[in-house]
C-alpha cells in the first residue's frame, strides 16, 4: 500500500512543472521536471568534486607550504590501487549521468501519437506558425495539457527553435523537416528564441508562446482565422504586416532597416537600383511582394524573399490598403 501511494504521489509530482531556481527558469512542460532533476543531480556531483579538489588543494598548500631549511618529505611516486580508484569511480558516475541523460532524451524526442500538429517556418528574422486550418500566426498559440508536435523547416539559413520554459530546442534546417514536441502544463506567455545564429536580427527573432487555458484555444483559433472577414482591410493589413514578418525589415515610422521604410511611400515616386524610378501603386506593391527582385529600391540589397504562394490575394489587398493608410490616403 505504502509503495503504491508513493508511486501515486510521485506521478502527481511528475505531472507538475518546476519553480525557478538560482540556476533554472520556471519549467512548465512535462519534460522540465526530469531535465531539472538531472541538472541538479549533476550539479550535486560537480559541487562535491569541485569542493573536494579545492579543499584538498588549499589544505596541501597550507600544510606543505615551503619553509626554510625543510624540503619535501619522502612519499610514494605512484600507487596503482589509488589511481585505479580515482579512475573507476568517475567511470561509474559518468555512466550513471549518461543513462539518465539518455532516458530523459528518449522522452523528449518521442512525441505522443495524438499530438496536435503545428507547422513552423523559420525565416530571417521571424517565425510563422501554421495551424491545421491553414491560419498563419507569428506567435505560437497552444492549448494547455495537450501534446503539441512541431514540424519545422527554414526558408533560408539554419535557425533553432528554443523555449527555455519548456526545456526544448531543435534546429530548423533548410531543405529538411525537423521535429519537436512539448506539452505545456500552465497557461501563460513564454519566450521563444532563435538559438542558432542567423545574421543581422538574430537577437530579434523572438516570438511568444501563448498557452491558452482549457477550452480557450479553439475559440482563439476560430476568431484569429477569420480576421479577413471580421477586421477592416487596413487593420487586417496591419496585422499581416506584423505577423508575416514584413516589419522585421520594413519600418512604418520612417527609419531605414534592411529594407526601405514604407511610411508615406504609397502614391509617391520610388528610385530603383537600376537608375529608373516607379510610382508606388497597387501593381508595384503586388509585384514587389510576389517578385521582390524585379524592381529593387535604390540603396538596398536585393535580399527580400518571395511571398509567391504564401499570401492569398485577399491578404495582399489588405496589405495594400494598410500601406495606403500609411500615406494618409487610406
Amino acid at each position, binding site marked *: 500500500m505504502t509503495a503504491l501511494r508513493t508511486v501515486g504521489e510521485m506521478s502527481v509530482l511528475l505531472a507538475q512543472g518546476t519553480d525557478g531556481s*538560482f*540556476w*533554472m527558469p520556471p519549467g512548465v512542460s512535462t519534460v522540465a521536471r*526530469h*531535465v531539472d532533476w*538531472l*541538472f541538479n543531480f*549533476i550539479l550535486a556531483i*560537480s559541487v562535491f*568534486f*569541485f569542493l573536494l*579538489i*579545492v579543499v*584538498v*588543494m588549499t589544505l*596541501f*598548500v597550507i600544510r*606543505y*607550504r*615551503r619553509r626554510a631549511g625543510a624540503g*619535501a618529505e619522502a*612519499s610514494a*611516486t*605512484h*600507487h596503482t590501487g*589509488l*589511481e585505479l580508484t*580515482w*579512475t573507476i569511480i*568517475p*567511470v561509474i558516475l*559518468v555512466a550513471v*549521468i*549518461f543513462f*539518465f*541523460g*539518455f532516458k*530523459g*532524451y528518449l522522452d*523528449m524526442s518521442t512525441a505522443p501519437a495524438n499530438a496536435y500538429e503545428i507547422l513552423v517556418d523559420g525565416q530571417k528574422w521571424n517565425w510563422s506558425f501554421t495551424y491545421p486550418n491553414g491560419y498563419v500566426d507569428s506567435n505560437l498559440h497552444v492549448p494547455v495539457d495537450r501534446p503539441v508536435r512541431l514540424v519545422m523547416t527554414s526558408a*533560408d*539559413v539554419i535557425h*533553432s527553435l528554443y523555449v527555455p*520554459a519548456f*526545456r*526544448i*530546442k*531543435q534546429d530548423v*534546417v533548410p*531543405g529538411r523537416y525537423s521535429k519537436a514536441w512539448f506539452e505545456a502544463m500552465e497557461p501563460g506567455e513564454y*519566450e521563444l*528564441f*532563435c*538559438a*542558432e*545564429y542567423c*545574421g*543581422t*536580427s*538574430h537577437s530579434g527573432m523572438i516570438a511568444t508562446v501563448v498557452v491558452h487555458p482549457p477550452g480557450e484555444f479553439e475559440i482563439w483559433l476560430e476568431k484569429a482565422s477569420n480576421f479577413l472577414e471580421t477586421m477592416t482591410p487596413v487593420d487586417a493589413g496591419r496585422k499581416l504586416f506584423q505577423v508575416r514578418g514584413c516589419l522585421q525589415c520594413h519600418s512604418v515610422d520612417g527609419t531605414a532597416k534592411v529594407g526601405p521604410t514604407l511610411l508615406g511611400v504609397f502614391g509617391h515616386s520610388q528610385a530603383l537600383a537600376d537608375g529608373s524610378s516607379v510610382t508606388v501603386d497597387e501593381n508595384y506593391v503586388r509585384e514587389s511582394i510576389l517578385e521582390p527582385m524585379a524592381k529593387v529600391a535604390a540603396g538596398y540589397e536585393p535580399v527580400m524573399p518571395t511571398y509567391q504562394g504564401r499570401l492569398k490575394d485577399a491578404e495582399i489587398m489588405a496589405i495594400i490598403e494598410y500601406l495606403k493608410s500609411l500615406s494618409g490616403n487610406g
Partner: protein
Amino acid sequence: MTVDTPGAAAAASPATHAHDNYLTAGRGLLSWLFTLDHKRIGVMYLVGILSSFFLGGVFALLVRTELLTPGPTIMTADTYNKMFTLHGAVMIFLFIIPGIPATLGNFVLPLMLGAKDVALPRLNLASFWLWMIGAVVAVASIIMGAVDTGWTFYTPYSTTTGTAVISMTLGAFILGFSSIFTGLNFIVTVHKLRPEGMTWFKMPLFVWGIYSTAIIQVLATPVLGITLLLLIAERTLGVGIFDPALGGDPVLYQHFFWFYSHPAVYIMILPAMAIMSELMSVFSHKHIFGYRFIAWSSIAIAVLSFLVWGHHMFTSGQSGLANMVFSALTFSVAIPSAVKVFNWLATMYKGSISLDTPMLYALSFLFLFSIGGLTGLFLGALATDIHLHDTYFVVAHFHYVMFGGTVIAFLGGLHYWWPKLFGRMYSERWGRIGALLIFVGFNVTFFTQFVMGSHGMPRRYYNYLEQFKPYHQASTYGSYLLSLGFVVVAGYLLHSLFRGEKAPNNPWGGATLEWETSSPPPSSNFAHEMLAGDPYDIESLRFDPETRGYVRKDPGSVLLTRVGA
C-alpha cells in the same frame, strides 16, 4: 639537422651568464626572419601570438561593452556580429591553436631533449612563415568588410552572406598547414632526438603532452583544410555540397567542421596539461605522482578526441542513435582529464610548496579547469544539453576550459620559462598581483554567464531581454578587471626584458634538461651531449645561495661522456 651559427663554439660554456647567447648571436631583422634556431622561431611565434591575443582581446572588450545595455550601446547589429566572429576566429586560429606548441613547445622541447634543435629546422621556419601569411590573409578580411558568420562558418549562412568569408577561411586554411608542419616536426623530433637514457617513460610529461598534441595536429587538421576548400568551392563555383538550394546538406558541413574542431579543442588543452605536470612537480619540489597514468591519459585523450565530435550537434537533427553514441563517447573523454587532476593534487602531498607566480597560475588552473570540466558533464548529458546548447552556459563552459585552462597554463608556462627565454627575472610581487587580478576578473566575467545561460540566454545575441541585464553587466565589468590584469602582466614583463634581474640557470629547481644550460641558452643549446635521468628527480638538486639558483648535487650525472671523444 645541424644549425650553422657562428659563435656557437664560443658560447658552449655552461657559465651562469654566458656572454654569447641565442639572442645576441646575430643582429638585425633578417637574422631573425631567416633563422633556423628553434629558440628564435619560438620567440618570433611568441611575439606574433601575443599580438593576436591582444587583437582578439580588443574584439572581446568591444563585444562585452556592446552588451552593457539590452539595446544598441556602441555599435550596430552587423558590426557586433563581425566583432564576435573576429574575436572567435582570431583567438582560435591565430592564438590558441598554435599557442603553446609553437611558442613554448618550440623553445623548450629540443632543450628538454638535450638536443641542438628540432629535427627539421627548415620546416620549422616554414611553419612560422605560413603562420604569418595565414595571419595576414585572415586579418586582411577585416579590411575587406570582415566576416559575420561566427568562427564556425556554418552553412548555408556562410555560403550566402555578403561578407569576406573567403579571405578568412583561406587564412584558416593556410594556418592549418602551419599547424601540421609544427606537429610533424615535433613527432619526428621526439622519435629521433631523444638523448641517451631517455626512454619513452623517462620523457618529461611536457614532451608527452606536446607529442600527443602533434598527433592530433597531423591527423585532424587536413580535414579542416578539405572542409574549408569545399566551402570556398561552393561560394565561388556554386558546387552544391552544403547549401540545400544547390542540392547540398548543411548538416554535413557541421560533421566535417567538428571532425576537426573537436580534436582541435584538445590541441588547445593538451599542451596546457603538459605545462601543468611540470609546474605541479617543480613548485611542490617533489616527484610527479603517477607518471605513467598521466602519460597514458594524454595518449587516451588524443585518441578519444576523434570520436566525440557529434556532441556539438545534439540539436542539429542528427539521429537519436548518433546522439546516444556521441553522448556515451563524450563521457569517456572526461576520465583521463579527471585522472590528471587527481594526480596533480597527489603530487602536492608531503611536498614543499612554493607559491611563486607560475605556481599561482597552476593553482588557478586546478580551480578553473575543474569548473570547466565539470560543467562539461551537463553538456554531455543529452536531456540537459538540449536546454543548454547554444546558450551562454556553453560560452562560459568553453571559456573556463580554453581560458581558465589553456590561457592560464600558458601564462604559468610563460612565467616558468621566462628566465630561460630571456635570461631575466620579473617582479615576483607584481607577478602575484597580476595573477590575482586575472583570476578574480575571469571568474566575474564568466561565472555569471553560466547562470544567464541556464536561464535561457542564447549566445551571439546583439540585444537581449531585460531580465538578463544584471548578469551581462557584471560580466562586462569583470572583463574590464580581467583586462587590467593583463595590462599589469604586460607591464612588468616588458620591464623585466630591459631592467630585470639576471636569471640563474635554474631559478625554480626543475630537473629537466633545459635547466642545465645557461639562461638564455647559447645558440647550440648545450656544450656537452646530455644524459637524461628521471625528469622529476627534484631531490638531485640543491639551492645555491651564491647564484640564487639550483644546481646539481652531482654535476656529472647529466653529462654523457663518450669514450674516445
